[in-house]
């Protein structure tokens, strides 16, 4: 329970710190998405239902702060009233990213962080790509440029760079709070022939 409290505290803190993180012009307008990094690092350490609850709360808070209602051209004709990226879409992205990263929980438990670190960057980049694709779908025409790819790559890289520190913090906290990362859902209860073990 203490560990979950710490995770919530970290997420709140990340929202505050996110306000102070600058946009790097030299990195094509990319920045460190600390909230994403904290969410993904925490998702490795918590069970699936907790991850979904975190995705709901974090995504909602992110959209409450950063969602911009930009309406596609159809809105002017009264046929479409939902903004390009709908409010709540970040919850969906966090849910998908969290589900993906849960796959590397066994590695994290064993103290192997290479793949979790890579996955945190990859998931951040994929989330951005998904948002961009939605925008492009609404506006028509997939406009890509080297700068666009660099922006996504740099943002993903910033997340990857900060993630070892977050994983270390969570790992140490888990040890100190006697929180055990369980592997529910990984036990093989049946043989491949369908017989119970």
């Amino acid at each position, binding site marked *: 329970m203490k560990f979950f409290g710490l995770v919530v505290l970290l997420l709140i803190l990340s929202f505050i710190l996110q306000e102070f993180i600058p*946009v790097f012009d030299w990195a094509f307008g990319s920045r460190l998405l600390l909230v994403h990094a904290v969410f993904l690092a925490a998702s490795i350490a918590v069970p699936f239902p907790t991850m979904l609850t975190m995705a709901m709360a974090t995504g909602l808070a992110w959209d409450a702060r950063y969602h911009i209602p930009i309406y596609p051209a159809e809105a002017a004709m009264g046929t479409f009233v939902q903004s390009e990226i709908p409010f709540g879409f970040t919850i969906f992205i966090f*849910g998908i990213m969290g589900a993906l990263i849960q796959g590397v929980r066994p590695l994290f438990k064993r103290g192997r962080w290479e793949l979790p670190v890579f996955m945190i960057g990859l998931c951040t980049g994929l989330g951005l790509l998904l*948002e961009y694709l939605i925008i492009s779908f609404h506006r028509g025409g997939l406009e890509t*440029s080297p700068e666009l790819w660099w922006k996504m790559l740099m943002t993903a890289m910033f997340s990857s760079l900060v993630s070892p520190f977050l994983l270390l913090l969570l790992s140490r906290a888990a040890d100190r709070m006697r929180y055990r990362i369980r592997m529910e859902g990984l036990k093989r209860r049946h043989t491949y022939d369908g017989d119970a073990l």
Partner: protein
Amino acid sequence: MSRLNIIFLITFVGLLIWITLFQPEAIGKIQRGAMVALRPFMKASNQLDGAVATLGSETLSPAEVREKLAAVEQERDRLKLEVIQLDEILTENNQLRNALQYLEKSPLSLVAARVISRKPTNWYNTLVIDKGELDGIKVDSPVIVPLGEEAGLVGKVSEVIAPHSAVVLLLTDEMCQVSAKLENSQEQGILSGQRGALRKLPSLRLRYLSKEAEATPGAKVFSSGTGELFPANLLLGEVNSVKIGIIDAEANVKPSVNFDDLVDVFIILPSESAQAAPESIPVKPVTPP
């Protein structure tokens, strides 16, 4: 997958669908709450940015003096803009009354605002200002800054998120489209920014120009006022280069406003008459007496 996981997954999907169906009013309430909670940190962050920017400068005046100076500068800029606007309105009135027999345009009223957060979202070029609902700010209100003797367009209000906060969509964003005209020419087109908030590419695109358009590099680009959203004669930028296509031409335009240095901006409020009857915003012809 365990039963608990399935229950949570179904609940998650259900809540997600419910949230995406929220009406704008409900979203507004949630965003207002977030803005109230995070506003102190946004302001602190902006002050920190300012402090870092001034770090290393030769003289640092005391905070009170800086505050007073900023207020005086803001007032001076506001008056300067009013003079510009009044000059334009006067000229326009004369033109409309004498030559075209149009009614005079509604006078513009300005509200000064300070930028409290300039960090764009992932894909939109935006900034947050310290004026909102209680200051009379409306969605789509044009945002300008004085540029010498002219007024430069910064963008438009995209969302009023709190009693004293609003989001401005910058001219450099693809979704901020302005009806524009070339200096000393009747040539008109649509000016827009780029997709994706890639700050390394701040140039704008002036599209749908005719192939015969005399868009020489250095020519100024102004708002034409025909789109009804932005007033005429706001400075938008200067032509960098022109690309002639098969059926039309497109100019690459360098914005006149330095979006990284924005501190104080001005919002053009809709006039009372315009609020009462939006269709009366554009000039309309009247029969001669």
